[in-house]
């Protein structure tokens, strides 16, 4: 039996662009996430108890911030990928389906 994808979605000329964009965004998030981990490790937790805004400490603000930041990056990534897919689809008859 064949071992290809369950559904053939056709060629995807934007895949190279999307891969590069994904790696860049992944690195950006990695740096911010590592910042959280190493701020805690290097200050032995002391920096995390600093009140930064509205009575909330760095641990809470940074933690919730990481969750919100992930969503913001994801939306930017999707917008850029969708734009590129449309451009490539309209550029030639061999454009991939989105």
């Amino acid at each position: 039996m064949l071992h290809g994808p369950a559904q053939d979605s056709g060629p995807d000329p934007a895949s190279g662009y999307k891969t590069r964009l994904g790696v860049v965004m992944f690195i950006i998030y990695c740096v911010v996430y590592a910042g959280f981990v190493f701020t805690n490790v290097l200050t032995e937790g002391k920096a995390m108890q600093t009140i930064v805004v509205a009575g909330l400490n760095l641990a809470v603000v940074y933690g919730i911030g990481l969750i919100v930041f992930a969503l913001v990056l994801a939306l930017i990534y999707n917008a850029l990928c969708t734009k590129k897919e449309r451009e490539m689809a309209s550029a030639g008859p061999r454009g991939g389906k989105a």
Partner: protein
Amino acid sequence: MNLHGTPLSIAIFSLFVAMVLWLSYFFARKAKSAAGYYAAGGQIHWAVNGISFAGDYLSAASFLGICGMIATLGYDGFLYSIGYLAGWIVALFVVAEPMKRMGKFTFTDALDAKFNSRGIKLAAAISTLVVSICYLIPQMNGAGSLVEPLLGLPHWVGVIIVGVIVILIVSTAGMTSTTYVQFLKGGLLLIFSTILVGFLLVRGLSTEPPSLRGAAGESLLSVPEQTTEAALAGEGYVLAHTAGDLLKFTQNGAVSWYKKDADGTLWKTQWEGAGLVNGTPDGLLYPVGRIKQIGGMSAEAAAKGTGRLNMVNFLATLTRDDTRIEQWHKKTVFDEAGVKYAVYYPKTVSGTDQMKPGVKFKVNTGWEKLNFVSLMLALFFGTAALPHILIRYYTVPSPACARKSTIVAIAAIGFFYVLTLFMGLGAATNGTVNPADNNMSAPLLAMSFGGVLFAIISAIAFATVLGTVAGLIVAASGAVAHDLMDRYGGMNLTEHQKVKAGKVAAFVVGIVAIVLGIVFRGVNVSFLVGWAFAVAASANLPAILMLLFWKRTTAAGIVASIIVGIVAALGIILTGPAMFAGPYGLTAEDAWHPLGQPGIISIPLSFLTLIVVSLVTENKRVAE
């Protein structure tokens, strides 16, 4: 904890299970082909798939485990929320679209798309099985915890009920029914968790919340007794044994355990051991978790409560340095006769300490720092390597749909994880924590708002377990029937035979999960899932990433990295402190090493193995 199901909770629970089984039956007709059984025919809409991702992912670990850990340990539990969500970034930016392009039914298909190697088929299938079983243990354990108060049944009965229902679901319908069960459950979990947090904020904070008052407004607070050794001696208590800061006293043959503070104060504990609970054969542990002092308020005002709070004020009040919260911790000790006891003792912490990392995951010594980094590494890299998450990329029609469904998942899961902080802290301050099993903290918080909300939340949590277990068993059965029997074993099964083999495999994996779920009773489910993430990140992720981004990767390199990743991660876990203090029945000090989380060693080791073996085998190939 004296908890019994009401007719209402049993009725709502039964309704949910019936609905799940009906969905399963309804979609059974779509599972005739292998593509239907393993990948829902690749025709699920991306938005439905996104919420189903959330349903798959927001398992017992997220809802029960994280809330329970926050309820007992404060901010440390929230570290899991942060790490679990961050893992989706790896899934979205690096794995989603390529996995969809390369694979057919399983993670092994994608990994083996380039090489067509029997070794990869075998190693990846074993990895899928191991990770799925590691992930199944906490789900089954969580199911047992839920059933105890919901239906008034023992833990082991709950585990068996889940096992049987899931085997029934998976062996009737496969991925299509699993997807719709997850969609329904993911959506309901988000809605009712939001409602629960809304109720909590309207109630506000109080040192004597309504949940701790009787019908006539009297206080039901169970305040731990505070005394001294001299006072106890005066009452005829005899010090029988000292286990660190825990002291065992006897008085006319009756046992009591006390926790000694640095200033000599003794606190009466709760304990289980020698067939007794708090001193009697049919004794009960009383629920714990309260705010002792609200920063900036007098004792009288704090007893009346803050009234309605917004989300920021709720967290800010709990963060104040003059707020005091009573946490309950557990220690396993042996007395002078070698009898094992689980002792639960109170510890008052300031808001500052409650709301920062450091109760469970301390970062003062080198080992502690290593453990913390290791945990955060495994959570970050584990998500994108979980087989039951990866197979969901094959249920949508295109790579773009895979991407969009991942973004829906990030939005839904991220929102839920913010709520976990409120539900956990709510349980910690409303007297709704079972000291022996903190997994029920969120449902018990719901119980403090009435039986209906408790029944609905518990039923959703149970459906959560059902859905996640079903997804895991589909992944594991795919590994056996599709990867091992058909592709590795070269049995050339027909479509019908492959579906049948998958169902038999689902039955066997289900039985294994039931047994392990009973063995691991009482261990926090999120902590257990952390291990599954570590094994997945060590075994699968190096292979996926290097295959995508390093052209010199060879089949032998992939096989070696998967095997080394599994062995290293499992080896460190099985010889570590949590296993010795838990299932082995010893103490954490007996462990071979102090490392609780394997990721910091096993993930780089797996990467290194892949690189070295690939370079060696590539050179051999070139030489030949």
